[in-house]
């Protein structure tokens, strides 16, 4: 099933479904509204508990304001709900701490996550916040796969990370702005660390 055909019903973009099922309304922080089936919501432990606690009837869902998810934007939330609808009814995996952690990325998920890294990180962030175990697993797997065969410099570019030097410069600038003595302390600390030996890895 393609991303476009996923049974997500965004009030802004699609019609209300004919099926007589319980659909909850959610609103992103940029005021995008989504209708999500009860079964799809079960993929998110956070949302599932929330709707259970609210105990809405079908009428409440229509008459009361949409449930606000204040720290996730519409673009990210749309991906989240598309994923939940596609995987609704599936068992939620239990992390038994086994090594290696075996996670397969299904074709639908791969297409859904064909997005820029910034949005991918937001998706991971949302999956963690909403406690959607399998979405977190597959999105983290995608990020882990990106690390394969890359040098530290390439990894910095891929993961948008600063090098130690850049990081230090930024921290120093911030510290100096607050306390000029901080730089001396930092340098002394670094010197001590340097004397502590080195390692290939």
């Amino acid at each position, binding site marked *: 099933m393609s991303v476009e055909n996923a049974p997500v019903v965004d009030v802004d973009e699609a019609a209300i479904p004919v099926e007589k099922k319980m659909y909850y309304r959610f609103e992103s922080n940029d005021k995008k509204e989504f209708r999500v089936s009860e079964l799809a919501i079960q993929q998110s432990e956070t949302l599932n508990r929330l709707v259970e606690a609210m105990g809405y009837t079908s009428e409440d869902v229509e008459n009361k304001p949409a449930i606000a998810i204040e*720290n996730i*934007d519409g673009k990210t939330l749309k991906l989240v709900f598309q994923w939940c609808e596609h995987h609704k009814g599936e068992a939620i995996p239990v992390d038994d701490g*086994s*090594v*290696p*952690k075996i*996670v397969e990325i299904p074709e639908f998920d791969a297409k859904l996550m064909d997005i820029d890294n*910034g949005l991918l*990180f*937001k998706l*991971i*962030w949302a*999956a*963690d*916040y909403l406690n959607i175990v399998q979405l*977190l*697993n597959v999105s*983290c*797997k995608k*990020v*882990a*796969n990106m*690390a*394969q*065969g*890359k*040098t*530290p410099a390439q*990894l*910095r570019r891929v*993961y*948008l*990370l*600063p*090098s*130690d030097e850049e*990081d230090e410069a930024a921290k120093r600038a911030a510290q100096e702005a607050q306390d000029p003595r901080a730089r001396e302390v930092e340098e002394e600390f670094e010197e001590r660390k340097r004397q502590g*030996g*080195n*390692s*290939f*890895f």
Partner: protein
Amino acid sequence: MAETSPAHLITLPDVALKNILDQCDFLAITNLRKVCRDLRNFIEDTKPEPYHKDLNIILYDDYIRVQTYTGENPWLYPDGDWVWTQYTKEPIGCSVSFVTGDKVIQKGFPNEDYISMFCGDFLVNFGHRKSVLPDFYLNLTCQNPEIQSKFLESFQKILESRIHPMKVSTFQMVVEKAEPVLKILKFMDKNSIEEINLMSLHRATRELDLTELKNLKQWNAAKKLRLEHFQTSENLEEFYGFKSALVDYKELKAQDIVRLRNEFLQNPRPHRFQLMYETISNEPLLIDTFGQPFLRTDPIGNKKNWIFSIPDTDQIVSINLYSKFVIFYRIKGSDVKEKTDPDYFEQVWV
């Protein structure tokens, strides 16, 4: 949850970052350690355990080679999952080489000793590992007793310093004698050990003194034992605790073969025993006790074959006497028809 969206990897919640690292391979973790301080600190705090299938450590006179399989693909990294690192003694200090399929990355450490360098990296990568390493292989090819004892002492210290003993499933060592095995094996977790393989360094059969080894908890917890190119003078009964064993005798007594047959008939534990021998004493006892064998030829050679039903089960024990070894194997009821066919033979270990 933070109020701003994540700008980069390190700003992800800890649970997510841990999940990512748990799914990274060994080299990705190694490289991620070098990316930035925050990530390195996170890796040191959470100690992710990338998958390793094999860990092979080979000690030579002037260098230590470490080969790991991080997956199933036998090609050298980056085409495959085979990772090769070498710690070499240099006139001043040491060098560390990382060998990939198409290049060698080498770095010099003027004031470091190659054994210490290896131990430092081992501590970082395996020192805190809690999960079971499927295959641990330590080859003491080095002939210099001073270097060997320095290596063993340093390596032992790491194993000893662990809060939890190291977990390995198959424990393999290539050695000249039992002493180094004792030093290392006693620090392994007895609950994870399935198999112990000891191989003679020279591939020329010699005696291995098992007096102390057989008292180790790890030895007694293992289910399989292979002593390759090592002869023993221990009574065969000493190996009855194993499910499978490969043992080599200078002179094998026919009486031992009869006793082992009885053990297979009476005890459900023995599954497969292979006894190597140079000579076999009192061989006619076998025909006197077992009756006339089937005379068969298979790709291994000519053999005398006896088959006995195991009482109160649907299983049988098949005894296959070749010119230099005898193999016992237990056959499950469902396999009896296939495995007692005259053309059938089991793959041998050596």
